[in-house]
């Protein structure tokens, strides 16, 4: 089992007056090559959970095992090579003089040869749709969207088997968002990477993820295939979340035109369904 989280508990600032239980009773198993969406309110424990996947945080209680490596062990090099995490606003981590050097940062630490590094950097910028011309530029002259992609490329260049993205499109315009999601989907399909996408947007998760984990107050509220999650919006509404807007629209339409299929979660599928219904 590639990702296995067993009975995970995590407490921030243990012992002080600010002690906070961030995670409790978390159990997850994830197969290779799946596209997982994690959704939940701010403070529901999403970010804490993903930081356990490469050993940045160690469980207060319980176990996290990735491809047979327990994250509690000392040497985390191999683990961090296998699990790439792209944090929120990853462009804030850029620091090198040129884009190329910045993307090579992790690869140099792995002690790869210069040829190998050059190849990986090229592959990485292509996989996020950046032009070769940016390589010699300073990351600070680029636009916001480009910086974001450089930062993602820095993680992708390490060729992780598991790529975790925390709100990778926060603060981007719809076009930038669609592009980034396009490249993520492509990485998932082409290299059979396991993708774990953390997002606030039901629409994005519904469009991309095969399986959705809903977090609430530090534990897993639901863990089901996308389709099942959204077919019961009442459950989501209980914790103040909701199904994608288009699902509600389809439900309303069905009330008027009973022939319509209401189990629809993306705008694209809704368009198809309506076209089918109208041509019928």
């Amino acid at each position: 089992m590639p990702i296995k989280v067993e009975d995970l508990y995590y407490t921030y600032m243990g012992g002080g007056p600010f002690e906070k239980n961030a995670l409790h009773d978390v159990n997850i198993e994830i197969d290779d090559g799946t596209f997982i969406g994690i959704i939940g309110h701010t403070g529901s424990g999403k970010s804490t959970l993903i930081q356990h996947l490469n050993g940045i945080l160690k469980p207060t209680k319980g176990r996290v095992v990735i491809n047979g490596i327990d994250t509690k062990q000392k040497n985390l090099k191999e683990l961090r090579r296998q699990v790439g995490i792209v944090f929120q606003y990853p462009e804030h981590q850029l620091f090198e003089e040129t884009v190329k050097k910045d993307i090579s940062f992790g690869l140099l630490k792995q002690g790869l040869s210069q040829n190998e590094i050059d190849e990986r950097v090229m592959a990485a910028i292509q996989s996020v749709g950046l032009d070769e011309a940016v390589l010699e530029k300073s990351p600070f002259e680029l636009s916001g969207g480009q910086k974001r992609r450089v930062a993602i490329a820095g993680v992708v260049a390490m060729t992780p088997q598991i790529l975790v993205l925390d709100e990778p499109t926060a603060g981007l315009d719809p076009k930038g968002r669609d592009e980034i999601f396009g490249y993520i989907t492509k990485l998932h399909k082409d290299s059979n990477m396991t993708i774990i996408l953390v997002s606030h947007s039901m629409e994005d998760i519904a469009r991309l993820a095969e399986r959705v984990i809903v977090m609430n107050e530090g534990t897993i509220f639901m863990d089901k295939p996308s389709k099942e999650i959204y077919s019961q919006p009442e459950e989501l509404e209980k914790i103040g979340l909701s199904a994608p807007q288009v699902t509600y629209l389809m439900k309303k339409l069905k009330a008027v035109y009973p022939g319509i299929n209401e189990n629809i979660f993306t705008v694209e599928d809704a368009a198809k369904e309506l076209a089918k219904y109208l041509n019928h």
Partner: protein
Amino acid sequence: MIRDITIGQYVPGDSLLHKADPRTKIILTFIMMIFIFLISTYWGYLLLTLFTAITVISSNIPVKFVLKGLKPVLFIVIFAGIINIFTIKGTEIWSWGFLSITYEGINVAIKMAIRLFLLIITASLLTYTTTPIALTDAIEKLLGPLKRIKVPVHEIAMMMTIALRFIPTLLDETDKIIKAQSSRGADFDSGNMIERAKSFIPVLIPLFISAFRRADELATAMEARCYRGSEGRTRMKQLRFSGSDAVVTVITVAFMTWVLLMEYVLF
């Protein structure tokens, strides 16, 4: 890891000390710190320790939390203690070669340890029970008279407020960047001194950039709200002395007078 530092942290609460005016607390803390150095008998220290303990308990701050704040100074106390024990001349109790321990040395070491601990606890009680904003407000008020000799008191206080306000933000930011870079393979714990110092470049550069960006944004936001320095500026929350100030002052001053009388008249 960074979050383990507790000195200077505010702990919300509703005790008498929390309610007292920050000016009262600053002045009393200051007097108390001088007072600690006026005491030189074990009787005096015992009373002082009891008084400090009662103050901590009455402030409703977890004792464990206060003790945790003493950890960073433990090293200094032990170090100073060892030097005192071995260097002060007097009645020898034990000697080996050039090393000798004297009765006076042990005495000074113990008293100094008590003094340092009491000083730290007293000073941190001020910050535990007062928000940073209230503290700088009080400092601005207390330094008010210096305005006459053209000291930019308001500006200094504003700078302090902003600096204090950004400590947690920058700590958070550092934490985030360290996490992000170590996810990319950065290693902060191995190698020699120079390598380790170098390994912090990927943290420091993004940190500086974000600090400058925040400073810029803050300046814009302040200007957008028409901030123009101290001239003609009034406050929404005026500092006012209240009943709790009278109680706190009377108790502290009475206690100090009593101990001083015992020290200098009775013993």
